């Protein structure tokens, strides 16, 4: 029997109270261990999809399974790590506390959380800022802390919603290198980005969505062939025009 996919969406529908239909019977399956990119313009439904998976919005209809578990169950939620597009750090906590409390929310005992927080601060070069509160950190440091927090509880599925938005080129390369190492270690990555070269550089498979519907899904090479395009940018333009 084959292992369940990391993420499985069946007929996922989200209609907001305003009436906006953000996802329309959306189907998607992301295999365990893959590096999957989600591309689409603003309002395409990328963040709605991620929020639905992470239990941050009320789903209108459909089913979400994370490694075979219903996404609302604690077992499923423990397997997901989320770094949101907007910096949403707790203003009352310093860097180390941010990681320790997050570990606690995800059921880690104090000793394991302290050890893992130390590792995360070393990996993301945050050790010197351990006792600095989030609002006093630079933009780049906040972005690192968001990523460290998402990985704190060692999730099997990491969801990165535009993780490199607004960061300088140097940090972007550093984050790319870290995300690649994470994937090589067996973690499934779901990445949304507006940077087409980022999707092409990192992702094994790319899905293009618009208006809450899936337009295309393949490897970067497969998409270029299917759309008879020279680059992913051309693919994107043709997909949006279709």
């Amino acid at each position: 029997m084959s292992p369940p996919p990391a993420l499985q969406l069946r007929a996922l529908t989200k209609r907001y109270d305003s009436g906006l239909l953000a996802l329309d019977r959306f189907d998607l399956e992301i295999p365990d261990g893959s590096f999957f990119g989600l591309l689409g313009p603003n309002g395409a439904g990328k963040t709605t999809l991620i929020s639905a998976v992470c239990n941050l919005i009320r789903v209108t209809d459909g089913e979400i399974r994370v490694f075979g578990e219903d996404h609302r169950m604690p077992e499923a939620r423990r397997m997901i790590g989320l770094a949101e597009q907007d910096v949403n750090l707790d203003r009352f906590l310093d860097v180390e506390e941010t990681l320790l409390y997050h570990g606690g929310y995800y059921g880690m005992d104090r000793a394991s959380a302290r050890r893992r927080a130390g590792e995360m601060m070393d990996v993301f070069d945050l050790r010197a800022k351990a006792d600095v509160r989030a609002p006093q950190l630079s933009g780049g440091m906040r972005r690192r802390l968001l990523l460290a927090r998402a990985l704190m509880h060692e999730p099997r599925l990491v969801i990165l919603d535009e993780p490199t938005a607004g960061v300088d080129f140097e940090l972007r390369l550093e984050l790319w290198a870290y995300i690649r190492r994470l994937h090589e270690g067996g973690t499934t990555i779901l990445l949304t980005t507006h940077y087409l070269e980022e999707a092409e550089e990192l992702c094994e498979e790319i899905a293009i969505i618009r208006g809450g519907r899936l337009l295309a899904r393949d490897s970067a090479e497969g998409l270029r062939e299917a759309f008879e395009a020279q680059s992913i940018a051309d693919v994107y333009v043709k997909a949006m025009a279709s």
Partner: protein
Amino acid sequence: MIAAVAARHRGLLALTGRETARVLKLWTQTILAPILSSFLFIAVFGLSLGGRIREIHGVPYELFIVPGLVTMAMIQAAYANNSASVFQARFDRYLNDVLAAPMRPWEVNLALSLGGVVRALCIGGGLLLLVLPVVDVPVREPLVLVVALALAMVLFASFGVVVGIYARSWDHTAFVTNLVILPLSFLGGAFYSVDLLPSPWQEISHLNPIFYLLNAVRYGFLGTADVSVALSLAVCGALAAGVVAWSSWLFRTGRKLKP
């Protein structure tokens, strides 16, 4: 046994720890300031007016107002703490880190409520310690006092969480303090006995829920009250149950918390 239960509810313990840490980090603002302002009420009203209003129901005036002021300080703290903490968490969106975590809705609700309870207990205890050298405050009915204060904290801690969820701006949370809790506390008999009011003000006062709360707490301290203590506790218990049911429903369904 306790270790096993704690291990099953680490999320609850962590979030309670976070809420408590927030109160203690800002202690001058969250604990010291309310204690001093309530003590000033006792000093100014009790000790200065005490010479003119000697006794109410056979109780010296400076002693009569202590239970009301302790209750007012505690319920305002429980409400203000939770409404501000929940609203801030929604406003800055760090609540998402909690909502995405593998915690049950009741654990999130309880942990967010406990921050206000901790703050209220610190203020109530601190205020009594400060008052004791000035006014000899008895505890005539300890069981009634414990039940009344527990219901007060449950009611206003949960109410703070509910308002924090519904609020769209800081003004909304302050509105409830300034235009609901504070006036109802003053008109509920914090500084006087409602029995002394002429009709219809006496009857109207009986529609004020905080009147029953103040009476129950006053009975616990002084052994005297304007209405039956059983009625007071029943009204407080019914209100607390209603507000807890409301906040539980919000967390269970995600309404107002999640789009």
